[in-house]
């Protein structure tokens, strides 16, 4: 297992020259989970995609990103493509849109696995079946034969996790994986993430604006605002002794909403912490 090191990452729009992420440096220790928290537009997703070098053509990036002793930013397009999927895995926000709408889930998955490992069909189904049962997608044959629109967002989210389990990456990057889900599915998916870490022992970057989720998963937290890191530290420190005004604002806003909610609901059974 290797550390993920990002140093002096800068992302800007090549047309307008406007900087979207400025001088961003952080390290994720092997096997740890880093949560990146911030409002939409704060540069969280851009940072994630910059690690995989998947930002849109109009965006440029500078700075170095290391995965152990591999310098991701220096790889050729062909080399990074081999890294994507096998060493770095991305899990997206909206499961509904993450799979090709006109292919079955199975054929999308098969394509990825065949490309990286060249497994036979039965081998693939065997491994997928195991991974899918692990994420509680028991009816795996039916799901593999379904089109994305026939499944729910939560199922597709777990499908992405199952694929990650089979691919056994060193780093899992999850880009707001729970935002598009209802509370119950959110809870299930979060559990699966926790299990995923246990199972693979992988490093994780978890982007969210939901501090509840972050508290549950993260070892370390990074707060971003307008493309700048305003605070980073251990999760417990951030939640109990926020130093930056903005962090304090986020934490108190969250707790006050929770308290209000709890008062309304007459108990704390509904909100998980």
């Amino acid at each position: 297992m290797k550390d993920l090191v990002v140093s002096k990452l800068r992302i800007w729009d090549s047309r307008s020259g406007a900087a979207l992420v400025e001088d961003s440096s952080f390290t994720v220790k092997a096997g740890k989970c880093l949560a990146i928290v911030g409002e939409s537009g704060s540069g969280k997703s851009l940072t994630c995609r910059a690690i995989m070098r998947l930002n849109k053509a109009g965006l440029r990036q500078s700075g170095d990103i290391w995965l152990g002793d591999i310098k991701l930013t220096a790889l050729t397009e062909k080399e990074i493509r081999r890294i994507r999927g096998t060493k770095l895995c991305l899990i997206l926000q909206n499961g509904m849109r993450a799979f090709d709408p006109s292919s079955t889930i199975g054929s999308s998955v098969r394509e990825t696995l065949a490309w990286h490992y060249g497994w036979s069909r039965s081998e693939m189904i065997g491994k997928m079946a195991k991974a899918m049962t692990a994420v509680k997608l028991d009816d795996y044959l039916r799901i593999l034969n379904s089109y994305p629109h026939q499944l729910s967002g939560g199922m597709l989210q777990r499908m992405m996790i199952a694929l990650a389990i089979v691919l056994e990456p060193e780093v899992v990057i999850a880009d707001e994986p729970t935002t598009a889900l209802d509370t119950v599915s959110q809870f299930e998916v979060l559990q699966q993430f926790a299990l995923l870490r246990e199972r693979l022992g992988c490093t994780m970057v978890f982007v969210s604006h939901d501090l509840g989720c972050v508290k549950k998963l993260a070892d370390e937290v990074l707060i971003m605002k307008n493309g700048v890191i305003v605070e980073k530290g251990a999760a417990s420190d951030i939640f109990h002794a926020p130093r930056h005004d903005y962090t304090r604002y986020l934490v108190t806003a969250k707790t006050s909403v929770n308290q209000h909610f709890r008062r309304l609901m007459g108990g704390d059974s509904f909100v998980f912490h």
Partner: protein
Amino acid sequence: MKRYVLGKVVFAIPLLIIITFLAFGLNHLSPVEPAEAVLHAQGVPEITKELIAETREKLGMNDPFLFRYGSWLLDCLRLDFGSSYVTGLPVWSQLGPAFLNTLKLTLVSMAAIVGLSIALGVGSALREGRLLDKGIRGAAFLLTSMPPYWLATLMIWYFSVKLDLLPTSGMDAWQSYILPVAIITISYAGIYFRVIRSSMLGNLNEDYVLYARANGLLELLVTKHILRNSLQVAVSVFGMAIPVILGSTVVVENLFAWPGLGSLSVRAILSRDYPVIQAYVLILAVTFVFFNTLSDIVNAAMNPKARMDR
């Protein structure tokens, strides 16, 4: 799916009835009495009241409207559209071959349009904002702003007169196809390529593309997925295009003296040859409805979302 197809077919039936009614009623909406028009078209020098009355009787125009509509419809089903006022020959003997000629022109043009607009659309979408994209879009913009008949005349002048490479008119050899097909293709590919392009761009920004790339798939495979989803739109669009082109080759046919429906219809209009106009409108409208229904159904069959409500 079954219900969907049935619904489409059921909707087509009243449409067909309205179309036949309109086509039949054409005569009666005309400011000129049909019997008089017949005599005019036949070049009778002196038209008297008696002559008109006699012609009316001969053409069966004194029977009740619905009765005549019914018998006309039955005749039409047997491809008997009456006789031309001008030549006296059965309409179908002129219209049938003309329809085939127009169909040939349409299908060849269609193939060229599909090929060209997919190539241009895909090319410019994959190079969005670059020189290739800008060039293609600029050229398409300019070409769609040109009157096709003007472009055609200029091309005839250059290729046929100045260079003497291609025939100016008729459909004698395969070379005769080049100019008409080029004109139709230019007029339509400029429009359809935009659809392909914007559909490609829409798909390029979809999450599934990002996810496929994040899984390390080859760009070629990713492009294949994008194409597959974008071309779904294209199928319905091109399905719609066949009848549209079939009905609008009029200008090109007249310019190149193509012996098709377009030339025939304009000649018929200028000489007020009502049975020919009637049959022309009927046949094209029916073809149009047929292709529309067909492309709706094909589209539904291709799109898994529509397939779901089986």
